[in-house]
Structures are given as C-alpha cells and as structure tokens.
C-alpha cells in the first residue's frame, strides 16, 4: 500500500480490455487493448497531465480509475482503499471524493434540467442538503465558478460553451471532492474561452486544495497546467516526468515527435526548429505490435524493439521512460 502519505492516488498495472463479439452466437473473437498495464501515482494537490493521440487510452484510463469501467486487472488505491475491490455501496459513497469534468459541455448536461437541478443533483443524491439549503449551496457554487447565481433557473441551451463548462465544474465541486478527472475539459472551446476555463481550474485548485488528472491532447496546455506529465501511446505510458524536464529533455522518440509536431504561434521559432514528422497512423489496439508498440512508426527502431517489450526505467530521478534506446 501507500507508504508515502503525500500520495493521494496510486494506480498499479491497470488493464482495461474491451471484448469484441462477432457472428450469430456473439462469440468473443478478440479484445481491444485500450489500456494495457499502466502504473503511476498522483500526489496530493498536484496536477498530473495525461497526453496522447486519440485512441491511445487516456480517457479509458481516467474512466477506469473512477470505476466507470470495471478494470480487467490491476488496482487503484485512493487513500489506501483499493477501489477495484470495493463493493457497490461503499464505492458509491466514495464517489463524493472522486469527480469528473467531461469534454463535451453540450452532451454532458441534461437539456431538460435547469442549472439548479444539475448542480444540486449530487447534493440530493447523497442527502447532503434539501430544499432551501440546496438553493444556497447552488448559488455559492455558481459564484465560485464565476457564473451569475441568478441564472440558476435557466436551461443549458441558454449558455455558451464556456459557461456550460463552468456549470460542469460547479457540479463536480458540489460534494467537496478531493480528486477530479478532467477529461479534455477545454478541447471543445474557443481559444479565448480556453484560457478562462484553465485559469478557473487553477484558481479552484489553489483555493480548495484539489488534485487533478488532466487528460488532453493539447501538449502546450498540458505543459501549462500540469506539475508532471505522462505520455501515452497505444494503451501504455511511454514516458513520465516533471513537466519542465519532459519538455526540455524528452527521452522517448514518441515524446520527441509529439513535441516537435505542436504548432507554435511564433513564425520565427517555427521556421528554425527541426520537426520530426512521423510516418503513418497509430496501429490498431486490437493487434498491437510486438515488442515496443511504437516501433512501427519509430524513426530509430532497431531489431531488438520488435522482440522485447522495453522495460519501464527511471533514467533520472523522477523521469521514467520505456525505450530500449533511451
């Protein structure tokens, strides 16, 4: 279990496979290796960034941590309790501590509920408040996310994307959680609104001592908000390091390519820098490549990479990487 008191969440060897069924008898013909053995821990009050391309398993990781999917294997320790082994009722009570902010502010709010009902629902579900108390709590939550409390009678369609995301944040905060999974909370928003929401998340973290798992594909935003960053590729974490360390000194060839592919809003800089353009697409997670999963697109792959799965090594203090050649 967790020896270090500062560790809030510890993920060990998390595996999430989705079965594929085919034919008249719905026989299982294979599995999607969405997450294939992921381990990391998150310290109290920190933000761990989780980046990768679509289909790499970053959202599945976030959802399996919260037990929204039942993991195939592995354990998730939250304050010394293994969530995977928890029975439904204790797990339900545990959910007060574990919340989520979703990507799509249009799909994640019920269009037939008013803001008061959306934000107040968790309070009712856990019997934390009733009647007038709910109104008061909702008003203070809306105030916290910088929305006008007078809007609590309105419906989601009356708000813009950025405002809806604030409603989602208010709902996540209703039960005073300590850990929030932010699943691409800003990628559906406009540039000028993204900065508003990121600043809000940072302020709330400071005020309420929150711990975030921040999932995103935008590497520059992840760098901005995270303390440490983990890079995922095809179901596994290939590199994990302190944010400035990772961006200054990426050790995995995938991280290097990913960083060099970020468009930079500086024409002089983007002319000078060397870009690594990866060939091809991400392989299918149904049949991941043998050995190192990145080898099919890796510019420096050698024979060994096809035969052996690279070990997860700590090359520098706090800087982990899974590559034979790093």
């Amino acid at each position, binding site marked *: 279990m967790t020896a270090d008191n500062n560790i809030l969440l510890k993920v060990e060897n998390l595996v999430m496979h989705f079965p594929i069924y085919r034919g008249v008898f719905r026989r299982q013909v294979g599995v999607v290796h969405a997450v294939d053995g992921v381990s990391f821990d998150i310290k109290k009050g920190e933000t761990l960034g989780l980046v990768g391309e679509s289909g790499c398993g970053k959202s599945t990781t976030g959802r399996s941590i919260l037990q929204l999917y039942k993991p195939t294997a592995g354990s998730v320790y939250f304050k010394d309790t293994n969530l995977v082994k928890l029975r439904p009722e204790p797990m339900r009570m545990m959910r007060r501590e574990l919340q989520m902010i979703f990507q799509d502010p249009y799909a994640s709010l019920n269009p037939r509920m008013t803001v008061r009902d959306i934000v107040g629902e968790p309070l009712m579900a856990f019997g934390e408040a009733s009647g007038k108390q709910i109104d008061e709590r909702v008003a203070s939550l809306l105030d916290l996310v910088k929305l006008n409390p007078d809007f609590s009678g309105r419906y989601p369609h009356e708000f813009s994307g950025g405002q809806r995301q604030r409603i989602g944040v208010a709902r996540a905060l209703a039960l005073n959680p300590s850990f929030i999974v932010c699943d691409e909370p800003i990628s559906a928003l406009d540039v000028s609104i993204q900065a508003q929401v990121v600043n809000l998340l940072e302020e709330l973290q400071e005020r309420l001592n929150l711990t975030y798992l921040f999932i995103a594909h935008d590497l520059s935003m992840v760098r901005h908000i995270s303390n440490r960053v983990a890079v995922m590729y095809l179901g596994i974490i290939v590199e994990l390091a302190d944010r400035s360390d990772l961006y200054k000194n990426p050790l995995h060839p995938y991280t290097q390519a990913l960083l060099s592919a970020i468009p930079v*809003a500086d024409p002089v800089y983007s002319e000078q820098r060397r870009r690594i353009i990866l060939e091809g697409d991400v392989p299918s997670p149904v049949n991941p490549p043998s050995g190192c999963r990145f080898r099919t697109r890796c510019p420096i792959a050698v024979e060994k990479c096809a035969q052996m799965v690279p070990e997860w090594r700590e090359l520098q203090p706090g800087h982990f990487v899974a590559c034979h050649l790093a």
Partner: protein
Amino acid sequence: MGEQLIDVQNLETHFKTPDGIVHAVNGVSFNLKEGETLGVVGESGCGKSVTMLSCLRLIPSPPGKIVAGKAIFRGKDLLKMDSEEIRQIRGGQISMVFQDPMTSLNPVMTIGKQMAEPLMLHLNMNAEQARNRSIELLGMVGIPNAADRLKEYPHQYSGGMRQRVMIAMALSCNPQILIADEPTTALDVTIQAQIVELVKRLRDELGMAIIWITHDLGVVASIAHRVMVMYGGYIIEEANVKDLYVDPRHPYTLGLLGSLPLIHEETHKKLFSIEGMPPVLYQKPTSCPFAPRCTYAIEHCWKENPPLETVGEGHRVACWVDPMKGSK
C-alpha cells in the same frame, strides 16, 4: 508573389433566423496573389468560413444571403456569375477542403468513384484516364498502393488518410486557389503535422495560392505568408505573418496570442484571458464590436466602429487605440 488572383471588396452576408437577421460578414475586403498563402484566423462565429463560402456562392440560401460586395476572379465577378459559370469554377479553378473528412466524403461510394467525378466533369476525361489520374494524385498525397485503395470505401481509411483524399480531390483539376477550411482541426497533432507538411510541399510544387482558415494561431504561423484576423464579421487586423506575431496592434490579436501557453515558456505565468464571449450581431454595430471585451477601450470606441487603416507595410488594423502606446 505574382499577380493578383482574387479581389474581394466590401462583402456582406446575412442570415435570416427566427431571432432576427444575423450579420455574419460585414464588409470584408481582401485580396490574394498568385502563389500566396493567406491565413484567416478567428473564433467560431467570427465569419471566417462564411466569408470564403460566400466567395464561392456556397452559402445555403435561404437563410443566407450575400447582400453586397464583389469578388473579382480573373476579371469577372464571382457573385454575379450565372450558376453554370460558377459551377465551372468551383472544384476547377478554385477548390475547397473541408474540416471533417468523414462527413464530406460519400460513405456509400468508393474513393475511386468520388475521385473520378470532378475529373470527368471538369476535364472531360474518360473513365480510364480518370482512374490513372486518381492513382497519380493519391500517390502525390502519400497514399501507398493507390490502385488497390481506389476500390475501398471512406470508412476503410483513417482520419488522416481521408483528409489526404480530400486534398487529392481538391487538387485534381489543378486549381489556382485552394481554400482549406480548418483542414487539420479534427486530426491528431502528429497527423496534423503530416498534412501541413504535405500542403506546403504541394504548394511549392504546383504553385497554387492557398486560403487557410483556422482558429489555431500556431498552425498559421508555420504555413501562411499573410494573416487576417477576424472578429464579429470584420477583419480587425491584417499583416505579414512575422509582423503579426512580433508586432500585433489590435487588442484582440494581443489577447489571442496572450491566451496561448507557449511550449518554450520557462516560468509558469497565468494565461491572459479575454473576458466575456464573441458577439452574435443582430444589427450592424455602430461601435467597435470588440469594445465590450476590450481592456483598452476608450469612450470613442463606443461611438464609432473603427475603419481598417494602414499602419505599416501590408499591415492594416481596425482600432481607435494603439495598445502599445495608449490612445492615438
């Protein structure tokens, strides 16, 4: 850069909605030269796509209507052409690549058939010629085994591959202008980098002009020669790419650049955020459309909408204030 290819003057487009008339484009003027890449930047609803769609008369009408302006292409006004003439131009001399390659390809037609269509229509090729040209085009955009892949359907292609097909189709009739409407927004970063490199290579090989519509100031920095920033249906700033990033003059451009985290930033700074949200214009504004969100706004900003004025070589700005020096 060569001769002027297209010259748009005072374009205005309205949409009729149940809530009133939305003024989507409010008098936009710009031009494009041969071989030039023009970046058009702005947030959703700023009119960047509608401006370009209007030039090709692709606005659904009703509810949309082009109410004023000219778009002169090779001496003729695109907005006054009859439907047969404009059809010859669309997909021929001016072609377009859209944001979402899945919805812009026909899911029940093979890639080969879809690619042959414009070739047979615009270049009067027969089926055999069209097939050969399609194979050549797919090779050009980097799709291996092109001959076999022509028989496949869009769902058998990945997102990046589909966008390559869209680009191949857009290039099939050797267009002089390629309009790319957020072509990489739906793609992953590594695939986005592939597509940007591909378009740059093809531009240099084929010498066409490109209008690249995007909300991503990063992508524009790496591909455009000149950039136009739009807000509320107006061009609020236009400059050569280096000037815009080094010397932005409009508070909105400044705000957009400030709200981006820099990948090579050393210390953690709070992001600059522009408060409020982009407007929906039900009336032609009498004040600066950005004034309600602007931190530099002075009294005059509420009285009159600033015109687009030249402030340097190729640098135009619509603002009453110089954010670097205070009021003008």
